[in-house]
């Protein structure tokens, strides 16, 4: 059953299905909140830095990780445990429920969760209609919906409407059929922005809307740790009820393949301060750092956004791309952050790179740097469980400081309309967005390109423009400040 009570939360549990109204945003550390408040005040009074053209500045000293390596450290989301949780909740559902709606914040990827569940349970997964069908004759698509009692899944309801007088008919007809019980039980995924709008179009209050609880600092630390441990740890570390049984042989395409299941110790250190942020397969126990709490708050508890932001911050040293090093197991971790400011360490500067500013960086990380780097050369060996002497091999990943994208100055109503339309529909192709907005087509097209140049939006492989995960928080805040409708999560 979907939990609506945090007291029922199990320690170590990552995924929790809750009613939409029970979604709790993770709170940022106090210092971070104060810094953000000051920053917004500065913006209000016009003292803003030149707009960044990207979320992350180029770095001279640290290199981004190779895609394969990134996948090995932060494997794509495995939705099987969450799908299992969903199945357990569904087994206790009321037979009177015509459908459950799983509301997904942008880029969270809950549509993949529903597809995973559909694959696990071998139920029909209904493809979204094309935009031509949504705005045109949709009787055929509606007629193809299952009418017997078998459950079905529609992972992307946001693809079934358009903010256009001709674009509301399909979703209304779908709700009519759902609520009249003509379609059997449906599990419907919907983007949170689309859901916020659709309550003015269809009786959303008459159906059950659920979502996965936000990842707070603790959940995020557990989850990232499990991903870094090889992706499989989640299955073992979660509660026994999370263990999938009878998993189908065909798994979702997002699952990593060919990745090692077990790794040696991995440590994630802050590139500026050297602080240990996360350790996996390691004897060291560290609490949830404020950096991870901040990441949870920055991503609004959204796993997709958190993972993308986390991946974008991971770095390795250029001369040691594998960064397999041995760290003294003694007090180095504990002391690293305390002593880093006092120890001269050229190595730290290297690690911090262009991402961070000067002096703090020079002193950064390295106690950790000295400890790690100096010993690394001697002891670099195969990654994983190989042993070099008595010291455990520790793989160190450097985490660049968090950067909050600020929107370019001068964004006005026209840009706001575009961004709002993209969020409401979870992305739109150029032709469609041009047709939905009141501006001349060439003007809309030009604005799309400008926003893309500022990395506020990007064109994705499906041909849709979407707000980037790096800009999402700033865009949401920008739209809320202008009194546009925003989502509930």
């Amino acid at each position, binding site marked *: 059953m979907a939990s609506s009570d945090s007291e029922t939360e199990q320690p170590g549990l990552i995924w929790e299905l809750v009613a939409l109204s029970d979604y709790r945003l993770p709170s940022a550390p106090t210092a971070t909140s104060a810094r953000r408040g000051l920053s917004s005040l500065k913006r209000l009074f016009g003292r803003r830095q030149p707009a960044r053209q990207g979320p992350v500045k180029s770095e001279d000293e640290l290199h981004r990780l190779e895609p394969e390596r990134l996948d090995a450290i932060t494997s794509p989301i495995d939705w099987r445990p969450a799908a299992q949780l969903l199945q357990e909740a569904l087994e206790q559902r009321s037979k009177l429920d015509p459908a459950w709606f799983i509301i997904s914040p942008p880029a969270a990827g809950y549509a993949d969760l529903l597809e995973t569940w559909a694959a696990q349970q071998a139920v029909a997964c209904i493809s979204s209609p094309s935009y031509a069908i949504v705005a045109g004759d949709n009787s055929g698509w509606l007629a193809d919906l299952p009418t017997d009692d078998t459950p079905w899944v529609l992972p992307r309801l946001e693809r079934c409407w358009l*903010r*256009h*007088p001709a674009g*509301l008919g399909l979703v209304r007809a779908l709700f009519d059929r759902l609520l009249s019980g003509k379609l059997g039980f449906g599990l419907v995924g919907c983007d949170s922005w689309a859901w916020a*709008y659709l309550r*003015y179009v269809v009786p959303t209050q008459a159906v059950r809307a659920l979502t996965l609880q936000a990842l707070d600092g603790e959940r995020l630390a557990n989850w990232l740790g499990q991903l870094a441990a090889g992706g499989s740890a989640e299955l073992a570390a979660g509660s026994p009820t999370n263990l999938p049984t009878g998993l189908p042989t065909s798994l979702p395409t997002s699952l990593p393949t060919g990745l090692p299941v077990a790794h040696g110790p991995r440590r994630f250190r802050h590139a500026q301060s050297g602080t240990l942020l996360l350790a996996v397969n390691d004897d060291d126990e560290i609490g949830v750092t404020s950096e991870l709490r901040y990441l949870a708050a920055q991503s609004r508890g959204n796993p997709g956004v958190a993972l993308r932001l986390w991946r974008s911050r991971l770095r390795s040293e250029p001369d040691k791309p594998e960064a397999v090093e041995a760290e003294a197991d003694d007090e180095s971790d504990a002391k690293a952050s305390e002593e880093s400011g006092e120890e001269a360490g050229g190595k730290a500067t290297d690690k911090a790179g262009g991402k961070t500013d000067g002096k703090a960086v020079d002193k950064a990380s390295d106690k950790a740097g000295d400890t790690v780097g100096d010993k690394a050369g001697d002891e670099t060996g195969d990654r994983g469980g190989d042993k070099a002497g008595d010291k455990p091999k520790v793989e160190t990943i450097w985490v660049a400081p968090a950067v909050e994208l600020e929107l370019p100055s001068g964004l006005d109503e026209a840009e706001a309309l575009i961004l709002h339309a993209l969020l409401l529909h979870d992305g739109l192709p150029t032709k469609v967005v041009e047709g939905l907005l*009141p501006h001349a087509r060439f003007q809309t097209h030009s604005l799309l390109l400008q926003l893309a140049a500022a990395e506020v939006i990007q064109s994705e492989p499906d041909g849709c423009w979407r707000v980037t995960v790096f800009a999402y928080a700033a865009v949401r805040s920008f739209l809320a*400040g202008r009194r546009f409708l925003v989502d509930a999560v």
Partner: protein
Amino acid sequence: MDTETINALFRRLDTGALLELTLILVGAVALILLVQKALPWLANRLHGKSRHYLLALVPLLRLIIVIGAFLLAVPTLIEPSLQNMVAIFGSLGLALGFALKDYASSLVAGIVAVGEAPYRNGDWVQIGDTYGEVTYVGMRAVNLVTPDDNLVSIPHAKLWTEPISNANNGSPQLQCTADFYLHPIHDGARVRELLFDVALTSPYLALGEPIAVVAAEQPWGTRYRLRAYPIDARQQFRFATDLTLRAKAELLRQGFRMAAVPARPESAGVSG
């Protein structure tokens, strides 16, 4: 009242008193200028209610500053006894009443305008034939910027004689109307649904505010009025344009015919 009696009312203005008066005057002017510049500047960086509240504060703060400066200056100029006050302000009022009647009327109306707030900065009002956004509420007059971008200054004295039509009354919400004229033979219920959806799907719409479609039968056809609220009052013309264009396109796409009233030459009416 002879010269000596009048002189006795006033204090002797020595250097210290002059300096004090100058400081009060300069201070008051500086504060008023600061309020008049800073608050609108800050308000224009905000949206919604915060903007309106800040803009509406300007005339109120200015009035407080003027009264404060006046109360500080008067004891410096005259002996603050009841007799003296009555004598001075009685004479002053009489002089103003005759010589600057209209000006004084506007000043008094300006104080009433701050108290009663029939218009505030950021409101969209119609005074006489002028419609526009209130950009400045001064001591004597109110400034409106019309949709044609003309600045119109209207004395507050109009308060006494003219109705003031305020479209948003201190809030960001402002109702907009778009009119449609259809051939009388059509499915009215379908038109109502369609016009509702046109408003609902406008990107300017303030969702959660009411949408209304009002129909009225006319000799030449059916008039529909679509009423809805934009997100921000400043979007009203763009919103009305968006409603009009998209509704027209959708009505035509769905086969509705617009009412067409044949134009009649003006002379025909005169001769008839």
